[in-house]
């Protein structure tokens, strides 16, 4: 990295600064910086899916047909009733197993099942190997499912907070039920839902630190590797146990993300609340 800088800059830096720039831009550290993409990807896709599941869940909870309402209530109650990490681990593993079970019912012969010694999958041909990409996608979906249950509750409450008079007026103008829902209820709901959705988003961002539990080489795993005590000059800088410094850096990263998200949601709130904000805040 230092070699990329022009001569005069390298000389002006001084040995100390040059040393730290060299250390912080060695290959392992660059891999660490690159691994932030997994966290950001999981947060963005998970957040988008959580919003989708939240809207679906809230519609189910508002449904006229009892079984659908029951599904919506069950989803939001059960998923919020168990720890996020449990569902986060369970969903990818269970999904993988279900797929393998379906595959095994097609490709496995009685002979291959009898020959297989491992408890799972039934035969080696049915094994589905999951790499980082697959686990990342599954992790994003399970983040979406977990926090979608929270979003369901928020959106459900916000849809009921929309003044009835607005909807009545829309119906009086001859809008159909679907039009009233999409053009009035969901349009006006955001200003009531945003404070709650902001909380859900912050919870989701913090849950992205769990990616390493699914064998993804994310920022937490790299921080652990880079900070571990090193006594071999060939491997890199010789240093004692520096892990807490790396975790502190991650802590600061998450606090910064929280701060940025808060600013972002404030701006969204200003935009969603044009004309109604004073009424909502009262």
């Amino acid at each position, binding site marked *: 990295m230092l070699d990329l800088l022009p001569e005069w800059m390298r000389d002006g830096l001084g040995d100390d600064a040059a040393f730290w720039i060299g250390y912080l831009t060695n290959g392992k550290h660059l891999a660490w910086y690159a691994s932030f993409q997994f966290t950001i990807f999981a947060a963005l896709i998970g957040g988008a899916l959580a919003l989708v599941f939240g809207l679906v869940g809230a519609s189910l909870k508002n449904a006229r047909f009892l079984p659908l309402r029951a599904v919506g209530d069950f989803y939001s109650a059960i998923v919020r009733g168990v720890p996020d990490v449990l569902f986060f681990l*369970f969903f990818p593993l269970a999904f993988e197993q279900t797929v393998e079970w379906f595959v095994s019912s097609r490709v496995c012969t009685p002979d291959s099942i009898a020959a297989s010694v491992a*408890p799972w999958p039934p035969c080696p041909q049915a094994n589905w190997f999951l790499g980082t990409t697959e686990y990342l996608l599954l992790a994003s979906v399970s983040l979406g499912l977990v926090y979608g249950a929270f979003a369901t509750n928020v959106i459900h409450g916000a849809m009921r907070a929309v003044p009835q008079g607005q909807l009545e007026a829309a119906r009086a103008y001859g809008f159909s039920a679907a039009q009233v829902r999409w053009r009035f209820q969901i349009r006006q709901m955001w200003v009531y839902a945003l404070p709650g959705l902001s909380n859900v988003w912050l919870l989701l961002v913090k849950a992205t630190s769990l990616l390493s539990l699914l064998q993804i080489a994310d920022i937490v795993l790299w921080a652990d590797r880079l900070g571990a005590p090193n006594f071999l000059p060939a491997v890199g800088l010789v240093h004692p146990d520096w892990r807490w410094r790396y975790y502190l850096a991650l802590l600061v990263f998450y*606090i910064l993300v929280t701060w940025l998200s808060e600013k972002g949601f404030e701006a969204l709130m200003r935009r969603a609340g044009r004309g109604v904000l004073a009424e909502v805040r009262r």
Partner: protein
Amino acid sequence: MEVILNEILRFAPAALFNIYFAAASIPIGFGLAILFAFGKGSKNPLISAVSRGYIYAFRGSPLFIQLFMFYSLALSMNISTWKPMGIDWLVLHPLFLGPLVLVLNTTAYTAEIFYGALRAVPHGELEAARAYGMGPWQQFRSVTWPHMIRLAWPAYTNEVVFLFHATAIVYFALPVIGEQKDLMIRAKEAFERDFNAYLHFPIAALYFLAVSLVVFFVFGRIYERLVRHLERAPKIRFSPKWLR
């Protein structure tokens, strides 16, 4: 059926670890949170800034990273500090370090809840208390505290349940010593042995659900006691609507 019953019995000792983590950290966090809530509302700019910073830092970062950071910090100070003092067996033990980090974490969340409630205490009542010549401690005891705790209780109930859920990740960051395994570690190990995700994880979930329900029930009864002087809210009516 027998398989499920056996599984439930095998997980029972593991659930005790989660309950221990929660039970050890909630009372201490409760006490500290009151201090930090008053600190955040304090007129002294230094105390206010420190409390604000503390609450923001611990609410803005994941518990998982906090656990890792405090554990590695304790590890790196082991030879220089804990070993000479002869307390390394205690400081590095997950049954001590886990509740310690959980206390730090829940203090921040609870303090924020209490601070919100503190700001909602009716101003007129405080003025009346001052007019009666009450000292600060008397004001706190007879006006601020009853209002604050009643206003904060529903949110605090949720925080307690969340903290109990958060105990699930303690042993993913801290070392597991011998048979001291909590529900998640037990479920993960059982899964790695026979790859039966549909059995082990739902049983662990069942324990979390059951304890959450107990917490909701107990805290709901306390809440009823806290609001018993208020005009009775309309009772919840069971009115099934099969098709709305």
